[in-house]
């Protein structure tokens, strides 16, 4: 089961995303176009950096703790999922904090 270790970290982030979405009734799906544009830029920038660094072995991944599927021969597929899930979580955090501050302002 150790092959799922990196995936477990990502599952934790995904669970947080689902919980926050339900709790604050956020509908990120309705803004999927904006998200695709945003994450497209993020993936283009950070995955390029990631692949380049992984090729130079600036960082490397324990082969026993990843599922083993590699992008461009070097980068674990978990890294791509990371750059999808983390931006989702960042946007959800930002949107829910916006709702909270708005709610507090309205109560004054």
């Amino acid at each position, binding site marked *: 089961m150790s092959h799922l270790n990196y995936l477990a970290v990502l599952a934790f982030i995904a669970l*947080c995303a689902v919980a926050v979405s339900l709790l604050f009734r956020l509908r990120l799906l309705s803004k999927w*176009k904006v998200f695709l544009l945003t994450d497209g830029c993020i993936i283009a920038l950070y995955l390029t950096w990631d692949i380049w660094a992984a090729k130079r072995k600036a960082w490397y*991944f*324990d082969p026993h703790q990843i599922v083993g599927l590699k992008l461009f021969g070097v980068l674990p597929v978990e890294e791509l999922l990371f750059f999808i899930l983390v931006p989702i979580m960042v946007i959800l955090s930002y949107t829910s*904090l916006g709702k909270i501050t708005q709610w507090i302002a309205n109560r004054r």
Partner: protein
Amino acid sequence: MIYSDIALDAVIVAVLVDLFLLRTQMMTRGIFWLTYGLILPFQLLTNWWLTSKNIVMYSADQIIGKRFAGAPIEDLLFGFSLILFTLSLWEFFSARHSD
């Protein structure tokens, strides 16, 4: 110390993009820093998770060697740039797709 250099560059680029290229000015808004403050402990938690179990490892000659919550301190720069970039792009594209 390649990671150190690029992580610092990523922060500088993200700041320039936010303030001058997309002009989203996220860094001047309280809600951005509030969001960063909320995410930072979660970043430290996942960093610690990934590095303490050696899921991700770093070559010693690529980092300056100082660590925080298990991960190289460069990760803090990387995380900040990722959060700033994401929110700057999100605001930029949101303003242009108000459907």
